[in-house]
């Protein structure tokens, strides 16, 4: 509860922009460092999540991160390894980090996968859409949660 007022502020800042379908019932609430609760109302699929994470045109994650992916050559070294991400973070923390890491670190280089506002000169093909759709983000969260050490 110590972070309640911070959470309210952050949630307010996030509400409009979040790429959450309007039919998804309660609006997302940031609690502490987490965005708990799947906005799609169904659990993500870890296998689909893995496919997104290693795909250099969808998740783009391995451009910056490395991780326990022996089948993937050419992993990035710009950021922490994804190995053990599921031990270090709850699903809610992972979700917030992916939807909008700027909430936690305004200077982060990690793109906010669930936001489409606050961006400059986005190319025509990508305009007004987030990098990943809410159900794809849920799949990625479900997969990261399996990365335990």
């Amino acid at each position: 509860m110590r972070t309640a007022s911070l959470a309210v502020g952050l949630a307010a800042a996030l509400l409009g922009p979040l790429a959450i379908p309007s039919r998804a019932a309660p609006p997302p609430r940031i609690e502490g460092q987490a965005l708990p609760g799947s906005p799609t109302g169904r659990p993500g699929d870890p296998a689909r999540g893995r496919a997104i994470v290693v795909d250099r045109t969808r998740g783009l994650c391995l451009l910056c991160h490395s991780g326990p992916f022996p089948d993937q050559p050419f992993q990035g070294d710009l950021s922490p390894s994804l190995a053990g991400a599921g031990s270090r973070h709850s699903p809610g923390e992972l979700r917030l980090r992916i939807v909008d890491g700027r909430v936690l670190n305004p200077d982060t280089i990690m793109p906010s996968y669930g936001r489409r506002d606050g961006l400059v000169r986005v190319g025509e093909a990508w305009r007004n859409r987030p990098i990943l759709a809410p159900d794809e983000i849920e799949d990625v969260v479900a997969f990261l949660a399996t990365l335990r050490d």
Partner: protein
Amino acid sequence: MRASLVVAVLALAGLLGPPGRAADGRRSDAEAMSPALRAMQQDDAANPGMLSVLDGEALWSAKAGGAGRSCADCHGDATVSMKGVAARHPAWDAGRGSAVDLAGRIALCRTERQDAAPLPPESPDRLALTTYVAHQSRGMPIAPPDDSGLRETRARGRTLFTTRIGQLNLSCATCHDDLAGRRLGGTPIPQGHPVGYPLYRLEWQATGSLQRRLRNCMTGVRAEPYPFDAPELVALEAYLMERAAGLAMETPAVRP
């Protein structure tokens, strides 16, 4: 005595050490390449960019347009008159009140002095002439001119360089100032010095301009690239040349 003074002056100018490396850590991105690629760049017989240089040399003395004049008719021997020209472009064009890069200058000579059909961006002839002229500065230090108009242009370029853009929300500076030397996927991020343009890029299987490279980086972060010859691209070029001042020109360079 004299010798040590010369050494000190050279060191101050950042000219000591391997060519293309400055005392402050700035270096040509050729230095991070594999030995095989470096050898390809250094051997004129193996460097595919030399084909553009040869094409450009032929175009230099070919009469063209309504004026029936060649570049050589006005500028004479390029190996003399064009030495150092690329190292000080983009330059300020007082008549137009704007900065002009080398390819833009050549395109202007083409339409205004030769009265010939325009040379579109990235057309083989424009690339060939630009590569030939820039080749005359190979080995010379980049020497951006001091000019108030250019200073403003460079400031605009610097702002563009440091502004986050695109769906991935990254700036040029994120990668080329903060993360140079680290790996983006498998690719080492270069410092991004424009020392070798136009250059031959294996990925393109062709010679291409600095503007083509800049547009690639913009598309890479899912930003809308500025059109060729846009003032924003010239401003970025002007800033990049200032950022690379003192590094040696390499045209035609070879890059992966």
